[in-house]
């Protein structure tokens, strides 16, 4: 009982795959016909397919009408002055990119150093109650953990982001 059923199932799924391939091929031929990239043999193949499925003629006709519409349009021209300063704008971006890196790195270094100085002075100040000194230490530890956690999350997301590369 089981074997014939399996055989029938396989035959049905092969039929479906073949149908899907035929449909895909027909779509390609319609596109090629609309864009004038169809060969003589392909045109005959398309005509045969349209004979068998006349409802597709309407679809092909709609694509042709659409093509007529889009053929009368083009992207709006950019204002002429766009090109006069284009390279200068790119150059400014490059300069600012370097500036931002310098500012960011130096800000992190100076901020960390300043914070360390403050914490060190507070910890050395014996006049402060111990609970305050320990709170400062706990605050610093918390900030470091938060920083590490955020950086790790960013790296984790970046590594697994399906859109980080071009999606084809």
């Amino acid at each position, binding site marked *: 009982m089981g074997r014939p059923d399996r055989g029938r199932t396989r035959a049905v799924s092969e039929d479906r795959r073949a149908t899907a391939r035929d449909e*895909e091929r027909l*779509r*390609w031929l*319609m*596109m*090629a016909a*609309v*864009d004038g*990239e169809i060969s003589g043999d392909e045109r005959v193949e398309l005509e045969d397919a349209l004979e068998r499925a006349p*409802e597709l003629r*309407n*679809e092909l*006709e*709609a*694509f042709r*009408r*659409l093509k007529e*519409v*889009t*053929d*009368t*349009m*083009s*992207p*709006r*021209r*950019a204002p002429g002055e*766009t*090109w006069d300063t*284009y*390279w200068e*704008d*790119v*150059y400014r*971006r*490059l300069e600012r*990119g370097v500036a931002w890196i310098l500012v960011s790195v130096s800000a992190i270094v100076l901020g960390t150093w300043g914070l360390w100085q403050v914490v060190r002075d507070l910890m050395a100040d014996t006049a402060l109650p111990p609970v305050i000194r320990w709170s400062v230490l706990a605050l610093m530890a918390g900030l470091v953990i938060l920083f590490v956690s955020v950086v790790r999350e960013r790296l984790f997301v970046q590594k697994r982001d399906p*859109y980080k*590369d*071009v*999606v*084809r």
Partner: protein
Amino acid sequence: MNGPEPTDRALVLRAQNGERAAFGELVTRYMERAYYAALGLVGVHEDALDLSQEAFARAFRARGRIDPDRPFFPWLYQIIRRLCFNHTRDRRSHRQKLERAGSWLADTTMGREAASPERETERAELREQVSRAIDRLEPREREVLVLREFQALKYREIAELLDIPIGTVMSRLYGARRALARELVEAGVVHVEGAAGDG
């Protein structure tokens, strides 16, 4: 006296040695193509300008990875499309875009034929509808449609630019046209017996 135009390869090699002026020549050579590629993908002048310039800036920073023996523009185009896809994926920019929505398409028949004010208004509405319908397409389908319709690339050229099989180019084009035709038939812009999008 001007010598022969330096090749892309020569300019890339000079840029890789840190010569910004050489990279500037590459920018000047490809800025219009880069801008219109971005415009086709995002549909807003300011965004297309910003994204295409950002693509050049990133290309300069990554110039060490350019293979001078391969064409420069397809490599740059990969950066452009990545930036544009990320941009359109960003809901905030999408919202801003809708607020600024207007047709990014122009009429190529303008000036070639005398048209009445009514006809011009009709054409403007048509452009608006077509550009909005294109804006709603799935980004990868939109990309292929724009490259075919507005940059007049052949299937083979699109396949090479995107590094995908020609069959995939045609399938995406079919998907784009089907969605576009469905919308424009429903809007009564494209007239045909039986809608393309039926079923």
